[in-house]
């Protein structure tokens, strides 16, 4: 009996020491800086997400002595898998910051190498760079930057006889157009509604945060949300858009709502361009004429093609795992510079991805088959002041959780706007900002 207990205790002790030791070690080698280098890069859904291979191949062509190997992760559980791999010391040399919300987790956990020197070399053309800066240092380099724009169905606008958005719209114009479209499309015998607002909190809050002057997520004051929710509720109750309840219970996808012409307008990120092109050519989406316009603005000062419309969107960035071998650091930094720079941007635009340096590639982009050709679409794609949806801070993830609860409570009609905002504010104060 004693022996068996000793065996168990011994095994347990070994196991505990293994777990506790697991975090510190893991730095694999001290390989020399000369000669060919192999970097590993994280990616997801490699067969249908060509951006990683495009970057890897493009970089290898420019730097023949560096090979970039891809390591595949699951698209929906990317961060869970990556956190586990980093904790166990098995993560690749370069990994993607799939969304800005988790960036703080990696940075705070010391899982990102300081890449300020790369950022300095890139200049200010790269959108979203500042989102990765904390305490004066840069920890990741963005290679793509999507921004939210207004997608609209030209055919449905024609059918309803409503003037298409010309870049001068404020939110009031948007609301009245949505209502007008709904009413006239009904008369014209179409089932389509004026607009589709997807179930995400960002469809309301992203714009509210970006377009309200003085709005600050971490201030814990959310009164800036009120006019945006009042409008969204108005659209919902007037029947110009599907209600949140019906959209969630029926798992409506934005791809089908817009692609199958269920709605004449939809606010969505520019990543949808590539999807829409692909679905129209595969037959998953209907064939129709579509276009893009800048997102509606809070007031007239930022409307019109001479101004810069304000919108939001999070960048996607590349970070370096601090545990990569010493000899690989230089090569890894070169890779980041390539991905964010003009060469990388062109390569990405060629496959329908909005690169961080979007102005440089507008022509490449609009040469893709199926793209609209009007000037407003080009303007909407190329020119915008894109504010982050998730400004990086210790509190962002917690605050976004609180605000998501607010979103579902308000849009489902469970709570009036004012009550929901004051509840969110007190929760923010007592549960998030007090740490």
């Amino acid at each position, binding site marked *: 009996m004693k022996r*068996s207990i000793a065996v168990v205790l011994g095994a347990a002790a070994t196991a505990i020491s293994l777990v506790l030791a697991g975090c510190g070690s893991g730095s694999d080698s001290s390989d020399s800086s000369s000669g060919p280098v192999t970097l590993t890069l994280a990616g997801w859904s490699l067969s249908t997400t060509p951006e990683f291979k495009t970057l890897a191949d493009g970089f290898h062509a420019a730097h023949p002595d560096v090979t970039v190997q891809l390591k595949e992760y699951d698209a929906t559980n990317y961060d869970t898998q990556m*956190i586990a791999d980093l904790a166990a010391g098995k993560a690749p040399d370069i990994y993607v910051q799939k969304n800005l919300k988790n960036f703080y987790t990696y940075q705070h956990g010391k899982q990102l190498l300081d890449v300020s020197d790369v950022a300095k070399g890139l200049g200010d053309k790269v959108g979203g760079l500042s989102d990765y800066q904390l305490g004066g240092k840069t920890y990741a380099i963005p290679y793509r930057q999507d921004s939210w724009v207004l997608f609209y169905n030209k055919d449905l606008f024609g059918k309803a006889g409503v003037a298409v958005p010309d870049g001068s719209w404020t939110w009031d114009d948007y609301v009245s157009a949505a209502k007008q479209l709904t009413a006239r499309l009904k008369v014209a015998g179409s089932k389509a509604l004026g607009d589709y607002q997807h179930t995400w909190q960002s469809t309301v809050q992203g714009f509210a945060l970006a377009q309200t002057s003085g709005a600050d997520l971490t201030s814990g004051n959310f009164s800036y949300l009120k006019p945006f929710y009042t409008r969204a509720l108005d659209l919902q109750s007037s029947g110009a858009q599907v209600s949140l309840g019906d959209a969630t219970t029926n798992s409506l996808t934005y791809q089908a709502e817009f692609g199958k012409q269920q709605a004449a307008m939809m606010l969505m990120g520019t990543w949808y361009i590539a999807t829409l092109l692909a679905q129209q050519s595969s037959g998953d989406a209907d064939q129709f004429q579509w276009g893009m316009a800048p997102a509606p603005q809070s007031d007239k000062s930022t409307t019109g093609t001479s101004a810069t419309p304000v919108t939001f969107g999070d960048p996607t960035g590349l970070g370096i795992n601090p545990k990569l071998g010493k000899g690989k650091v230089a090569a890894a930094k070169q890779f980041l510079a390539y991905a964010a720079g003009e060469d990388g941007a062109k390569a990405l635009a060629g496959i329908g991805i909005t690169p961080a340096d979007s102005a440089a590639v507008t022509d490449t982009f609009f040469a893709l088959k199926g793209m609209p050709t009007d000037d407003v679409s080009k303007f909407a794609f190329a020119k915008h002041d894109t504010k982050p949806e998730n400004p990086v801070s210790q509190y962002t993830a917690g605050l976004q959780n609180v605000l998501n609860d607010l979103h*579902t409570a308000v849009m489902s009609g469970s709570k009036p706007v004012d009550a929901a905002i004051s509840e969110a504010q007190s929760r923010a104060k007592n549960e998030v900002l007090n740490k």
Partner: protein
Amino acid sequence: MTSMPVARRRRSRPVWRNTVVGWSFLLPNFIGFAVLTLVPVVLLFYYAFTSWDVFGGAEWTGLANFRQLLHDHSFWTALSNTVYYTLFHIPLTLAASLVLALLLNRKLRAVAFFRTVAFFPYITSIVALAQVWNMLFSPGYGPINEILRAVGVHHPPGWTTSADWSMPAVILVGTWREMGYYMLLFLAGLQAIPTQLYEAARVDGATAWQRFRAVTLPGLRPTTFFVTVMLTIGSFKVFDLILVMTNGGPGQSTLVLSQFIYQKGFVENQFGYASAVSIVLFVVCLLVTVAQFSVNRRRNA
């Protein structure tokens, strides 16, 4: 259960011999269990007192996590929602699965088919299941509300899209999903009841209800105990069903503890705090289980 002479005779055997024999039975399972489950769980007790960030950084913070918990309104919301779910889910599932097991524990034509059907909700993909139920519950277009309107209910509930009805809806689906699972355990338990007892009761002229009370229920006691404990733990831990059905909403109306733990850990990077909540969940389950054990023991005595 144990009669006195047996107990006395057993006590006469040397304790050390029983211990060796007992451990030799446990070891094959226990080694794997201790190394792979017990160790990480014990570590969790340590992490609960630190500001662990999952990458190895763990600073001792004493009771800070637990103090934070006391004042965390969301934690209390999650706890009370979990208790709400548990209080209704346990009796409903217990009753439904027992009734199913009794119904299907006989020579019916196609009984194999009906049993498999009853088990289907458990093996059907949870995504599909949540999907269909959500569609049925859909406030504007769902068949459930269409029927309610047809029979004269003017303002049918919003089900998963209403803060008041979301929890009942989730409980309903949870019961529906798990009844086949526990039915299986009851079926196994029913086989252990000696047939002679039924015969004897029948000879004594007991009615069906009396036979059920006097033979079936006592015979099922170990199974019922097992099912109750598993149901309790399962209800306190409920996670994926809520995640796919309501994701805790609307508002925080269906936020439960497991989901709160996941949010605090993987989303908000407070793994130390999440560990502390896990410990609370563990202790709550332990207390309930111990209570169930002692009630069970008293009944058996």
